[in-house]
């Protein structure tokens, strides 16, 4: 990342993501019927800013598409195009393609035109009748065109200090192209001549802007003639500042574009230069020198002032200049268009944010993890030293513990992000799925501001996508069926997130027909997943969906049922320390509920001893602890036992034997057991040797260094510096149940 251009490019793409988010927000608002000027302006600005930035990096495909999208939005803004459902849907599609293009441009992989072309065609169809000048603007490429300069004016330029010319004009100035000038005779009657006085401030150059590019853009609008002169008295050559802005251009533009198009060219340097654009009744270029060199803040053009009010319905409302802003603010707007978009274009106090490399945060998270471990070690040595609990050392240590916990929580909050961006992507999945299945569906989201760890959000994307597709494809009925059932034709998929008792719960619910349990069971029987003729509880049947190799779709549809089923979803959720469960009501719909830990870095656990090993059991998995009495334990098979817990039998699992640390005991009377309760309601009694402590532990992954260990989720470092394994009770029980646990252990022992 040493290349500054690369960095600027990278930050452009980060901004694009923000702009796309704002764009989707706006479209969302439009689809809810809020197609007022402000909303459209937000959408327009987002597209426009992406186009502007993309132009600077010559991302032609992106620029071309954004431009067409912008035209359509402009037509809406101008009132020549009215907003209806179809148009909003088209805009959504455009937004999706724009996101694709942004990503494709970022990765330097051109997007297949087969994807973009149909949408472009649709766009052109709706904007086609807007106006003739639109066609001229359809130019996809912003290929560098030679700047046409009047030779006389160059003479004038040469009259100035030669050094000046070098300062103001780039080295790669293309050869003057006189032949390329459009023939003035061809000019249509409606052509207007504008006189543009353009005097850059030093900030313009400092911001990386380049007058030449502006002139090139102008040239695309029509015939340009220019003359240049010194803005102020030139200092002597040896006092000349290389970065000073000393030149003023007077440009004469003959064009049939309207004034807003001309202003648009200068949009990104608004406030960084003295600018006046005046239509001339006379075609003759004039060069009155007295206006050049006015201070930036005072040179608002009369036209701009007239159209400055945002609510003004004038079609000529110039983009990006909806508020007459002082020079400084306008410059800021160019750099960061987000606040306007995010706050509904109402100027509000900006919340100060900093972009930080994720790696740095991770380093901080790791260090804080070390701190927590260190604090535990310190506490242990203080305890070993036998210091009384009221000694200053002990109370200082308590304070220290408190602080560490606070630091840890704050650091974790840095990593947390709202789920909004994730949910927005799901909107697209619903749109695509509803097109592919021909079912009319909409996504309703709730709790978008809920924050979860960034890694969790990233890794939720795939499972959620799959679940959303499933909801539309399998969950929702067809339109006719829905109408017949007395439901609105349009199906709803509800995606919600909420914090619930220290975990994040994400729900995907559809208002479809619910799970067809008879069919699920028969399919499971067909596929040999369960024995035929079993009588299963509703909950058990629902959970069959999570079995590997289960797919309910009668025929494999294009959308879901590609062999990756809910079992993959379940395992990716489990990998995040989460649990998934289903509730379904026939005729009313199905709801998948994912419960996730807030963070992947710490965990509240119970420290237990098994043989010589110390292990940690996640606290959220433990329902209660039991001391087994003789009447509680009943034999089941030759090597299996069950425990009676309040009139219910739960399987007894010996942790030491399950993990192969020892042979199962002959007798479990008096043993301590943890009653493990899982999301799906299944339970097991896990026998441990002793319970040592209950505390927060820092999770250290095992996957990277060693690989997956069955029944083990991760590792942690205890106060004495020893590593303790963190159990994955669900995995442990899943691997133990079915086969009798003691038998496996006996084989190991023998």
């Amino acid at each position, binding site marked *: 990342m040493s290349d500054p251009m690369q960095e600027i490019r990278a930050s452009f793409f980060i901004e694009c993501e923000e702009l796309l988010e704002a764009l989707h927000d706006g479209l969302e608002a439009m689809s809810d019927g809020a197609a007022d000027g402000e909303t459209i302006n937000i959408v327009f600005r987002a597209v426009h800013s992406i186009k502007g930035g993309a132009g600077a990096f010559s991302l032609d495909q992106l620029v071309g598409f954004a431009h067409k999208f912008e035209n359509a939005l402009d037509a809406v803004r101008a009132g020549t195009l009215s907003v209806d459902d179809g148009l909003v849907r088209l805009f959504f599609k455009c937004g999706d393609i724009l996101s694709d293009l942004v990503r494709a441009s970022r990765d330097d992989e051109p997007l297949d035109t087969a994807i973009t072309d149909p949408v472009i065609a649709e766009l052109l169809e709706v904007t086609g009748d807007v106006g003739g000048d639109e066609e001229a603007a359809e130019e996809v490429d912003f290929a560098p065109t030679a700047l046409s300069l009047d030779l006389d004016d160059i003479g004038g330029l040469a009259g100035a200090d030669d050094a000046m010319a070098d300062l103001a004009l780039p080295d790669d100035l293309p050869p003057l192209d006189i032949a390329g000038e459009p023939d003035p005779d061809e000019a249509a009657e409606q052509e207007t001549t504008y006189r543009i006085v353009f005097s850059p401030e030093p900030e313009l150059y400092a911001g990386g802007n380049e007058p030449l590019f502006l002139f090139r853009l102008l040239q695309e609008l029509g015939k340009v003639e220019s003359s240049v002169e010194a803005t102020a008295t030139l200092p002597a050559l040896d006092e000349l500042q290389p970065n000073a802005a000393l030149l003023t251009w007077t440009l004469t533009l003959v064009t049939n574009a309207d004034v807003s198009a001309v202003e648009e060219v200068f949009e990104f340097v608004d406030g960084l230069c003295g600018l006046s654009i005046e239509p001339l009744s006379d075609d003759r270029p004039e060069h009155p020198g007295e206006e050049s060199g006015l201070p930036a803040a005072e040179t608002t053009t009369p036209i701009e002032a007239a159209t400055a009010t945002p609510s003004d319905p004038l079609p000529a409302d110039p983009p990006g200049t909806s508020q007459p802003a002082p020079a400084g603010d306008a410059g800021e707007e160019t750099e960061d268009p987000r606040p306007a978009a995010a706050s509904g274009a109402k100027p509000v106090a900006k919340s100060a944010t900093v972009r930080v490399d994720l790696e740095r945060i991770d380093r901080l998270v790791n260090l804080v993890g070390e701190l927590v471990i260190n604090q535990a070690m310190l506490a242990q040595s203080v305890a070993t030293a036998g210091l009384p609990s009221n000694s200053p050392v002990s109370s200082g240590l308590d304070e220290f513990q408190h602080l560490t916990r606070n630091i840890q929580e704050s650091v974790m909050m840095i990593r947390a992000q709202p789920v909004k961006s994730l949910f927005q992507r799901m909107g697209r999945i619903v749109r695509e799925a509803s097109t592919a299945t021909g079912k009319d569906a909409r996504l309703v989201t709730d709790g978008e501001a809920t924050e979860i760890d960034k890694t969790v959000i990233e890794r939720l994307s795939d499972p959620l996508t799959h679940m959303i597709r499933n909801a539309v494809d399998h969950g929702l009925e067809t339109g006719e069926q829905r109408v017949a059932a007395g439901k609105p034709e349009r199906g709803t998929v509800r995606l919600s997130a909420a914090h619930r008792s220290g975990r994040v719960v994400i729900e995907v619910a559809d208002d479809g027909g619910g799970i067809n349990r008879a069919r699920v069971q028969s399919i499971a029987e067909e596929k040999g997943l369960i024995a035929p003729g079993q009588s299963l509880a509703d909950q058990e049947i629902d959970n069959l969906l999570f079995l590997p190799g289960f797919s309910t779709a009668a025929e494999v549809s294009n959308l879901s049922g590609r062999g990756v089923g809910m079992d993959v979803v379940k395992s990716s959720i489990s990998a995040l320390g989460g649990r998934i469960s289903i509730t379904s009501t026939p005729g009313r719909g199905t709801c998948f509920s994912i419960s996730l830990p807030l963070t992947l870095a710490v965990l509240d656990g119970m420290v237990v001893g098994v043989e010589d090993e110390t292990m940690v059991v996640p606290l959220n998995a433990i329902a209660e602890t039991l001391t087994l009495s003789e009447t509680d334990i009943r034999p089941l098979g030759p090597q299996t036992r069950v425990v009676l817990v309040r009139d219910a039998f739960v399987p007894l699992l010996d942790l030491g034997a399950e993990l192969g640390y020892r042979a199962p005991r002959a007798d479990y009377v008096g043993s301590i057991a943890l009653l493990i309760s899982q999301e799906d309601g299944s339970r097991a009694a896990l026998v441990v040797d002793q319970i040592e402590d209950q505390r927060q532990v820092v999770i250290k992954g095992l996957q990277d260094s060693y*690989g997956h260990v069955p029944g083990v989720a991760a590792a942690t470092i205890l106060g004495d510096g020893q590593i303790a394994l963190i159990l994955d009770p669900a995995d442990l029980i899943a691997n133990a149940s079915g086969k009798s646990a003691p038998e496996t252990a006996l084989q190991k022992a023998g």
Partner: protein
Amino acid sequence: MDTITQDAPQDGKDRNEEVELLSFRIGEHEYSVDIMSVREIRGWTRATSLPRSPHYVHGVINLRGTVLPVVDLARRLGLEAEEPSERSVIIVVDLEGRTVGVRVDAVSDILSIPRGEMQPPPEMLNDDTERFVRGLIVIEDRMVRVLHLEAVLPPGTEAAA
């Protein structure tokens, strides 16, 4: 990067180029590894055993906050294994981005030998140790085996999952 891996079979390489090896002892046997893959040497600490792991995996230890798997080299090579003692040594090696500890009895020396003096191991079928040995060197009448680290280490994440 293990220079031996790349260059040993190529006779065209500069045979006089010096290779530095860290030699260590397992029982009566002397082995060595390329010093470039050694990250550090540390004393023995009790390892937390991993359930259902291969018999030659001791378990994991805490290496300044990271979880480090430790392999018992004697058991891995099928040699008579002593129980780890206070005097056992863990050589921490870096291999293709993975960091793994290898338990040996004692570290003996750093050898600097010209590349050309390393001999390929004789081909003996039915001998498992052959795939663990990359080459042989003779130093003062002692034979030192050059260990094939990749073969010794436990399967990575892909294989285990």
